[in-house]
């Protein structure tokens, strides 16, 4: 069941590479949604006047930013799904095969 020494070592290397790729994409994506949402709550707390600026008819900036956050979350979900399938899954599959000793 367990792989031999060399293929486990290969698995560790593959996972290291996978983590590096994950960090490259997930850190900016996490910053984007945290800044988007927490920024919105900060504006709501401290810049009420600005949030009340009319944008379309009676809809003010606050509601526009809320709508923008919905779009952003949905977009990030789709983007994450794509990136995970294209970039993460092949590396994870490679590492998994190496762990079980059927690697390469």
């Amino acid at each position: 069941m367990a792989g031999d020494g060399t293929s486990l070592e290969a698995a560790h290397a593959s996972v290291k590479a996978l983590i590096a790729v994950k960090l490259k994409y997930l850190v900016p994506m996490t910053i984007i949604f945290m800044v988007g949402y927490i920024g919105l709550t900060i504006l709501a707390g401290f810049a009420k006047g600005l949030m009340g600026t009319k944008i379309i008819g009676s809809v003010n900036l606050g509601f526009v930013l809320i709508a923008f956050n919905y779009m952003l979350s949905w977009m990030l979900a789709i983007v994450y799904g794509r990136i995970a399938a294209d970039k993460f899954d092949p590396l994870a599959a490679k590492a998994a095969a190496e762990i079980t000793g059927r690697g390469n």
Partner: protein
Amino acid sequence: MSITLGIFIVILLITLGITYWAAKRTSTTADFYAADSRLTAAQNGFALAGDWCSAAAFLGFTGLTALYGMDGAFYALGPLVAFCTVLFLIAEPMRNTGKYTLGDVIRSRMQTRASLLAAIVGTVVVNFAYLMPQMAGAGVLVRLLTGISYDWAVIFVGVSMIVYVAFGGMLATTWVQIVKAVLMLSAGAIILVMILSLVHFNPLTLFADAEQKYTAKYLLPGNYLKNPFDQISLGLGYTLGLAGLPHVMTRFYTVPDAKTARRSVVWVMFLAGAFFAGTTLFGLAAANFVGQDVIRAADKGGNLTLPLLAQYLGGGKGSFGGDLMLGFVAAVAVATILAVVSALTLSTSGAIAHDFYVNWVKRGQVEGKQEVWIARVATVVIGVLAIALGILAQGVNVAVLVILAICVAASANFPVLILSLFWRRFNTGGVVGGMTVGLVSSVVLATIGPAMRGADALWPLVNPTIASLPLGFIGAVLGTFMWGRDAENEQRFDAFLLQVHTGVAPG
């Protein structure tokens, strides 16, 4: 009343039928806690939507928007953003490292009894803090809708939940969630179309009418959350706390692999997100059509806004259409509570029976067949306790418990889980430290805050997450350093990382 009761009895019969079907397919421990990990992404996505939209979301967001404008829309947006956290950081590692519970993940990382105990405490506190207000809410709602007394309403909800979970385990709980999610989304879609047809399919009219009726202040932030730091605190609590709710995390064990877990999160983000976005429009429509005075007269907190709006849309009080719509929405609200309390009970049963009794007391030395029975017994005990607490909670201000559930999840469970998954040096001392500091600071700040003490509050914020979350992280880091280097644990981290990222455990 009779229409509500009729629709509700139909829903109840369907869910009991599901339970009967699920009970025949629930024989092993994996069946009971994780539906044998055989759900599809769409099924789990709908069930997650069912989990996520508690009665507080279904009824509360619409009410808050109707009464307080933009602050209600903030509440509704939070849970969707929270799913970004779940999607990026939690869902796949949970699926890859655990079996049935949060305790499983902590245990497989630390392999110590103290850390398992800390995870159990975190789960049980959050679940009961969440369960009790749901039971109390169920009591009020069912009494209001059917006329039976509060105590009987709580008993009825409690017994139904025990039956679903004890007999049908995760499979029944999941399908009850799915049925409820489908009903809830259909109710939302019907209401949305009816509202839009009234404003000639121009949603901007809803904002213009609201401004005209209640002045521009109504559409500004800060009508509900007066303290700016409360807005931020709530935002933090939502984005990170919902990722620390055990009954939601355990849903990722019901799918076969990380890819399916990921896809199920994308499903729920579109399903629940669309519904939450809808509640903002429902709230504005209710303020315009039903009116804030009528909403307040029915329930001070605005929890009957959506049923009242549905009644108006159906043709008004006394009309057949109005009664039908009211009955439908009210019945879905009760189904919502039933589904959520069932998930909470199952998750608590996992912490008590699987984590505490089997893995902590018996050190894993329990046969599979026996473990299922232990889980069922635990379910009944937890259910009876929930009924008792629900009855005791009548008339008590349970709002503080809702805040506490989210806050403890964000300040204790979330830091411990994240550091377990991603920090090599993190050790048992860190688990215990993070859990203790996060839990104690949440409880203390919530009880001395305005939710509990009103004007006499010793701490200004309703939601303490902005302070307790950093404290929880500090506790976890300090605990780790005070515990000292744990070479064996750090070495094991490499193997653990393989499992976190691939789902395959070496050796």
